Protein backbone atom coordinates (compact mmCIF):
# COMPACT_ATOMS: atom_id res chain seq x y z
CA UNK A 1 0.00 0.00 0.00
CA UNK A 2 1.36 3.41 -0.93
CA UNK A 3 1.81 5.86 1.90
CA UNK A 4 -0.28 8.98 1.57
CA UNK A 5 1.05 12.29 2.86
CA UNK A 6 -1.01 15.39 3.44
CA UNK A 7 0.96 18.41 2.26
CA UNK A 8 -0.26 21.69 3.69
CA UNK A 9 0.65 25.35 3.24
CA UNK A 10 3.60 25.07 5.63
CA UNK A 11 5.23 22.31 3.65
CA UNK A 12 5.01 24.01 0.28
CA UNK A 13 6.25 27.35 1.64
CA UNK A 14 9.23 25.56 3.19
CA UNK A 15 9.90 23.76 -0.09
CA UNK A 16 9.71 26.75 -2.42
CA UNK A 17 11.37 29.33 -0.17
CA UNK A 18 15.13 28.85 -0.05
CA UNK A 19 15.42 31.12 2.99
CA UNK A 20 12.84 29.36 5.12
CA UNK A 21 14.03 27.81 8.40
CA UNK A 22 12.56 24.45 7.35
CA UNK A 23 13.70 24.54 3.74
CA UNK A 24 16.41 21.89 4.02
CA UNK A 25 14.01 19.47 5.72
CA UNK A 26 11.35 20.07 3.09
CA UNK A 27 13.92 19.71 0.31
CA UNK A 28 15.21 16.43 1.72
CA UNK A 29 11.67 15.11 1.96
CA UNK A 30 10.96 16.04 -1.68
CA UNK A 31 14.14 14.41 -2.96
CA UNK A 32 13.38 11.11 -1.26
CA UNK A 33 9.63 11.19 -1.75
CA UNK A 34 7.78 8.00 -2.53
CA UNK A 35 4.05 7.78 -2.22
CA UNK A 36 1.01 9.89 -2.87
CA UNK A 37 0.53 13.52 -1.97
CA UNK A 38 -2.83 14.86 -0.90
CA UNK A 39 -3.65 18.54 -0.70
CA UNK A 40 -6.61 20.86 -1.10
CA UNK A 41 -7.88 23.92 -2.88
CA UNK A 42 -7.67 25.82 0.41
CA UNK A 43 -3.93 25.17 0.53
CA UNK A 44 -3.52 26.48 -3.01
CA UNK A 45 -5.48 29.62 -2.14
CA UNK A 46 -3.21 30.30 0.82
CA UNK A 47 -0.11 29.66 -1.25
CA UNK A 48 -1.36 31.98 -3.98
CA UNK A 49 -1.85 34.71 -1.38
CA UNK A 50 1.56 34.13 0.20
CA UNK A 51 3.46 33.94 -3.11
CA UNK A 52 1.61 36.89 -4.63
CA UNK A 53 4.65 39.08 -5.31
CA UNK A 54 5.63 39.27 -9.00
CA UNK A 55 8.92 37.46 -8.45
CA UNK A 56 7.24 34.57 -6.64
CA UNK A 57 4.27 34.04 -8.92
CA UNK A 58 6.06 31.89 -11.54
CA UNK A 59 7.10 29.41 -8.84
CA UNK A 60 3.55 29.29 -7.54
CA UNK A 61 2.23 28.72 -11.06
CA UNK A 62 4.50 25.70 -11.49
CA UNK A 63 3.41 24.27 -8.16
CA UNK A 64 -0.23 24.86 -9.05
CA UNK A 65 0.17 22.91 -12.28
CA UNK A 66 1.91 20.05 -10.51
CA UNK A 67 -0.74 19.76 -7.82
CA UNK A 68 -3.76 19.96 -10.07
CA UNK A 69 -2.64 17.83 -12.99
CA UNK A 70 -0.55 14.94 -11.71
CA UNK A 71 -2.44 11.71 -11.17
CA UNK A 72 -0.28 10.79 -8.17
CA UNK A 73 -1.29 13.97 -6.37
CA UNK A 74 -4.76 13.83 -4.89
CA UNK A 75 -6.14 17.32 -5.20
CA UNK A 76 -9.31 18.04 -3.26
CA UNK A 77 -10.97 21.15 -4.70
CA UNK A 78 -13.09 23.28 -2.45
CA UNK A 79 -16.68 22.61 -3.46
CA UNK A 80 -19.91 23.46 -1.68
CA UNK A 81 -20.27 20.09 0.07
CA UNK A 82 -16.71 20.15 1.39
CA UNK A 83 -17.09 23.75 2.46
CA UNK A 84 -20.25 22.89 4.40
CA UNK A 85 -18.65 19.88 6.10
CA UNK A 86 -15.55 21.85 7.00
CA UNK A 87 -17.48 24.81 8.33
CA UNK A 88 -19.63 22.52 10.47
CA UNK A 89 -16.54 20.96 12.01
CA UNK A 90 -14.86 24.36 12.33
CA UNK A 91 -17.79 25.71 14.34
CA UNK A 92 -18.14 22.56 16.43
CA UNK A 93 -14.50 22.57 17.57
CA UNK A 94 -13.96 25.97 19.12
CA UNK A 95 -11.27 24.41 21.35
CA UNK A 96 -8.97 24.08 18.34
CA UNK A 97 -7.08 26.64 16.35
CA UNK A 98 -7.29 24.87 13.02
CA UNK A 99 -7.41 27.05 10.00
CA UNK A 100 -10.43 26.68 7.76
CA UNK A 101 -8.51 24.68 5.16
CA UNK A 102 -7.55 21.96 7.57
CA UNK A 103 -11.06 21.65 8.86
CA UNK A 104 -12.51 21.44 5.41
CA UNK A 105 -10.26 18.51 4.64
CA UNK A 106 -10.92 16.79 7.94
CA UNK A 107 -14.62 17.27 7.45
CA UNK A 108 -14.59 14.68 4.72
CA UNK A 109 -13.98 11.29 6.36
CA UNK A 110 -13.36 9.59 3.03
CA UNK A 111 -10.42 11.88 2.37
CA UNK A 112 -8.83 11.84 5.80
CA UNK A 113 -5.19 10.89 5.21
CA UNK A 114 -3.59 8.13 7.22
CA UNK A 115 -1.48 10.54 9.25
CA UNK A 116 -4.24 13.01 9.98
CA UNK A 117 -4.87 13.28 13.67
CA UNK A 118 -7.24 15.21 15.83
CA UNK A 119 -4.36 17.38 16.98
CA UNK A 120 -4.09 20.32 14.64
CA UNK A 121 -0.42 20.89 15.36
CA UNK A 122 0.74 17.36 14.65
CA UNK A 123 -1.48 17.28 11.58
CA UNK A 124 0.19 20.41 10.31
CA UNK A 125 3.70 19.08 10.82
CA UNK A 126 3.12 15.47 9.80
CA UNK A 127 5.40 15.86 6.81
CA UNK A 128 8.37 16.72 9.00
CA UNK A 129 8.09 13.54 11.01
CA UNK A 130 8.79 11.12 8.14
Amino acid at each position, binding site marked *: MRQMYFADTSYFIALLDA*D*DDWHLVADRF*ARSFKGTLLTTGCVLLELGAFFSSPVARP*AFARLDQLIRHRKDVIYVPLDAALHDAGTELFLARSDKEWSGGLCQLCGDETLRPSRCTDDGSSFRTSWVQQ
Partner: protein
Amino acid sequence: MVYHGHIKAGRIELTEPTALPEGAAVRVEVVLLADVEKTADDSSLCEELSQLSGLVKGMPSDASQKHDHYIYGKPR
Protein backbone atom coordinates in the same frame (compact mmCIF):
# COMPACT_ATOMS: atom_id res chain seq x y z
CA MET B 1 16.84 -11.47 -6.66
CA VAL B 2 13.96 -10.00 -8.68
CA TYR B 3 13.45 -10.23 -12.43
CA HIS B 4 10.80 -8.40 -14.40
CA GLY B 5 8.81 -9.70 -17.31
CA HIS B 6 5.36 -10.31 -18.72
CA ILE B 7 3.06 -13.06 -19.86
CA LYS B 8 3.22 -13.94 -23.56
CA ALA B 9 1.10 -16.73 -25.00
CA GLY B 10 0.66 -18.22 -21.56
CA ARG B 11 4.38 -18.27 -20.71
CA ILE B 12 6.50 -15.92 -18.64
CA GLU B 13 8.93 -13.91 -20.75
CA LEU B 14 11.59 -12.04 -18.83
CA THR B 15 12.59 -8.55 -19.89
CA GLU B 16 16.32 -9.23 -19.48
CA PRO B 17 18.16 -12.51 -20.15
CA THR B 18 19.27 -14.39 -17.03
CA ALA B 19 22.03 -16.84 -16.18
CA LEU B 20 19.90 -18.91 -13.85
CA PRO B 21 20.74 -22.63 -13.90
CA GLU B 22 18.39 -25.09 -15.54
CA GLY B 23 15.75 -26.27 -13.07
CA ALA B 24 16.15 -23.33 -10.69
CA ALA B 25 13.00 -22.90 -8.65
CA VAL B 26 11.32 -19.51 -8.94
CA ARG B 27 8.37 -17.78 -7.37
CA VAL B 28 6.09 -15.64 -9.56
CA GLU B 29 4.29 -12.56 -8.27
CA VAL B 30 1.70 -10.91 -10.50
CA VAL B 31 1.98 -7.10 -10.56
CA LEU B 32 -1.06 -5.07 -11.52
CA LEU B 33 -0.49 -2.66 -14.39
CA ALA B 34 -1.84 0.22 -12.33
CA ASP B 35 0.83 -0.43 -9.68
CA VAL B 36 3.54 -0.41 -12.33
CA GLU B 37 2.34 2.94 -13.65
CA LYS B 38 2.17 4.40 -10.16
CA THR B 39 5.67 3.15 -9.39
CA ALA B 40 6.88 4.92 -12.49
CA ASP B 41 5.22 8.10 -11.26
CA ASP B 42 7.14 8.02 -7.98
CA SER B 43 10.43 9.14 -9.46
CA SER B 44 8.95 11.83 -11.65
CA LEU B 45 6.88 13.34 -8.83
CA CYS B 46 9.98 13.30 -6.67
CA GLU B 47 11.92 15.00 -9.45
CA GLU B 48 9.23 17.59 -10.06
CA LEU B 49 9.00 18.46 -6.37
CA SER B 50 12.77 18.78 -6.26
CA GLN B 51 12.75 21.14 -9.23
CA LEU B 52 10.47 23.49 -7.29
CA SER B 53 12.77 23.49 -4.29
CA GLY B 54 14.25 26.87 -3.44
CA LEU B 55 12.82 28.74 -6.43
CA VAL B 56 11.76 31.67 -4.25
CA LYS B 57 14.18 33.76 -2.22
CA GLY B 58 13.91 36.61 0.22
CA MET B 59 10.77 35.56 2.06
CA PRO B 60 10.64 35.64 5.89
CA SER B 61 12.58 32.74 7.37
CA ASP B 62 9.74 31.78 9.70
CA ALA B 63 7.07 31.89 6.99
CA SER B 64 6.32 28.16 6.94
CA GLN B 65 5.59 28.20 10.66
CA LYS B 66 3.94 31.63 10.84
CA HIS B 67 2.18 31.87 7.50
CA ASP B 68 -1.12 32.75 9.16
CA HIS B 69 0.62 35.90 10.36
CA TYR B 70 1.92 36.81 6.92
CA ILE B 71 -1.26 35.91 5.04
CA TYR B 72 -3.98 36.94 7.49
CA GLY B 73 -2.20 39.20 9.94
CA LYS B 74 -2.73 36.80 12.83
CA PRO B 75 -0.47 37.68 15.81
CA ARG B 76 2.65 35.50 16.07
